[in-house]
């Protein structure tokens, strides 16, 4: 089991939420005080470095036009971290390549960070959440198709070393691809993909990339992982899926006592509860399938736009499997329960800072996890472990 400290570098100093219709896309940036923002960047970078000092890896992501994540150019932050950190793996999850006009430029940025960090990059790619569509002026229709073509183009750019090659695809055109630098890691840095759909996960499994899913709880995570394992097996990658191919992101806070832990965890819920987004930003046309829109119109829950009301409390979030919080023993038991339910994963993405969780409390949570929970997780779930719900012999499964 490998653990990652994930911070969205939020800007929490906002007016009352009833004074604005959306925290994303349209919230005026006059609310953002650059001086306070600079102090926050300093602080969040310090927290990533504290995590590294405790043996935890570094993870960041990218969002646009939002107070929830003031990191609209994640490769820039990653470049800074590549120089400030020394040993941690550096995961960007990820590059929103369905919204980037030039995938080859993304390949260049990632190659540069891999070289700057002496081969510590873990390169993640995401289709992007729906509220990224308007900031990117990106067409929400056919994003998946763009996403996969962009990824193939990036891999082509990374792995070609013999002078210019070309690409004339459906969405992207390049006559002369020959990036400098090329990545240190060969044939390329590990590739991560996040998806919340079983169809997407099956494709990721077929390709063998690392699959991450965010706050999908018990049953949805199991469905996604099962789709990944199916894709993996059907592509002939072998019967056994190593747990390190699967990642889960949860809100995690470990404290000395349950009361202190829940107090910290309650502040982490800012991430969920402050995500005020109206439907027209959360579900642009084409982002989900027509069939899914029909189900939503008939009252189905929109996984993408709302994390669910029962998950807005510490108890509700723990019950839903979107949060692990408590004493070290409690958190270990919660993770174990979730791990067993979904079939197992080897990458734990810790959303360990949100909103008004102050620096000292954030660092305390990281240390408590790293010192009291992480060693036991590594012992319980070594990298050689295999992922699968109720594993059966191969003969029984194919029968």
């Amino acid at each position, binding site marked *: 089991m490998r653990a990652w400290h994930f911070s969205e570098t939020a800007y929490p100093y906002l007016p009352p939420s009833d004074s604005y219709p959306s925290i994303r896309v349209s919230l005026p940036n006059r609310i953002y005080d650059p001086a306070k923002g600079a102090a926050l960047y300093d602080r969040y970078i310090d927290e990533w470095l504290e995590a590294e000092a405790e043996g935890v890896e570094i993870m960041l992501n990218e969002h646009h036009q939002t107070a929830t994540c003031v990191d609209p150019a994640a490769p820039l932050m990653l470049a800074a971290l590549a120089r400030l950190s020394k040993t941690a793996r550096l995961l960007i999850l990820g590059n929103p390549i369905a919204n980037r006009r030039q995938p080859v430029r993304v390949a260049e940025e990632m190659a540069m960070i891999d070289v700057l960090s002496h081969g510590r990059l873990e390169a993640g790619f995401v289709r992007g959440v729906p509220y990224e569509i308007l900031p990117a*002026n990106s067409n*929400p*229709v056919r994003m998946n198709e763009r996403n996969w073509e962009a990824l193939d183009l990036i891999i082509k750019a990374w792995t070609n070393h013999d002078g210019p090659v070309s690409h004339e695809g459906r969405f992207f055109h390049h006559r002369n691809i020959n990036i400098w630098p090329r990545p240190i890691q060969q044939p390329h840095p590990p590739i991560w993909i996040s998806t919340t759909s079983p169809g997407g996960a099956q494709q990721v499994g077929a390709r063998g990339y690392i699959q991450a899913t965010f706050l999908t709880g018990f049953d949805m995570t199991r469905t996604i992982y099962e789709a990944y394992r199916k894709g993996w097996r059907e592509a002939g990658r072998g019967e056994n899926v190593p747990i390190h191919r699967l990642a889960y992101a949860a809100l995690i806070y470990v404290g000395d006592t349950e009361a202190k832990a829940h107090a910290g965890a309650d502040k982490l819920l800012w991430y969920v509860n402050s995500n005020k987004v109206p439907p*027209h930003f959360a579900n642009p046309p084409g982002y989900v399938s*027509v*069939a899914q829109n029909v189900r939503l*119109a008939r009252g189905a829950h929109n996984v993408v736009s709302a994390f669910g009301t029962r998950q807005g409390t510490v108890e509700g979030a723990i019950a839903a499997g979107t949060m692990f919080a408590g004493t070290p023993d409690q958190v270990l038991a919660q993770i174990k329960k979730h791990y067993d339910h979904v079939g197992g994963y080897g990458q734990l993405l810790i959303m360990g800072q949100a909103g008004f969780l102050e620096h000292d409390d954030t660092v305390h949570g990281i240390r408590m996890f790293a010192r009291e929970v992480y060693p036991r997780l590594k012992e319980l779930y070594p990298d050689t472990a295999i992922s699968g719900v109720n594993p059966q012999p191969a003969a029984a499964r194919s029968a």
Partner: protein
Amino acid sequence: MTAKTIKIAGIDLELHDIGQGAPVLWLHGGQGFNPKHAFVDLIAAKRRLIVPSHPGFGSSGLPDWVDSVDDIAHVHLELLDKLDLRCLDVVGHSIGGWIAAEMATKSPERIRRLVMIGPVGVKVGSPDKLDIPDVFAMSQDDASKLLFHDPVKMKVDQTKLTDDELTIMFRNRETLALLVWEPWMHNPKLMRRLHRAAMPALFIRGASDGLVSDAYMSQYAKLLPNARTHTIPAAGHAPQLEQPEKLASAVLDFLEK
């Protein structure tokens, strides 16, 4: 009154062919075409009304290569070939007007008279302001206020729609986004080509249209050598729905000249 399917450019197109008389090609807007709307029979009482659902609308197919209004203009010109209609009247509403304008610049000789109802397709104003408000960046209620003179009366109760009707509604909306997203609601080249569309043209707009302003329509009409404008009171972006009689008589009067 059943639709048939016709294969054009490899695409299965839903095609309505209603009434008798000199043919009129009706090019629907982003909401798609519903033959039950009152204006349909009003026009079909005098003319043969030919209405294709654009690729990706209604039950028409959407191949992966189609992603622009220009593509659809080519498809519909091929449809006219297939129907052996060398020259006819064309009426376009909203993006249907845009499609009609593209067709008129490509093959002006095939359009006898042209009617543009609340048309989009050109950019005439400042780069700092959208000519057409961004209906995808606002709530459905706010969009309805721009779309209709009487949004309360025109509100569709989704719970009363069948799954098939809902499916078509969401699919139409998705295809609309595919076509108009960028550049927003226009083809930058179109205004440089419209001088070729010299046939008599009538631009119509509902007085309460919150998408297509009076200034936009006037400037759009001036790009055509032989166009005039007409406003229908107590109607929004879809005067054929809110004032079917007034709209039908304005269209028929113009076409029968």
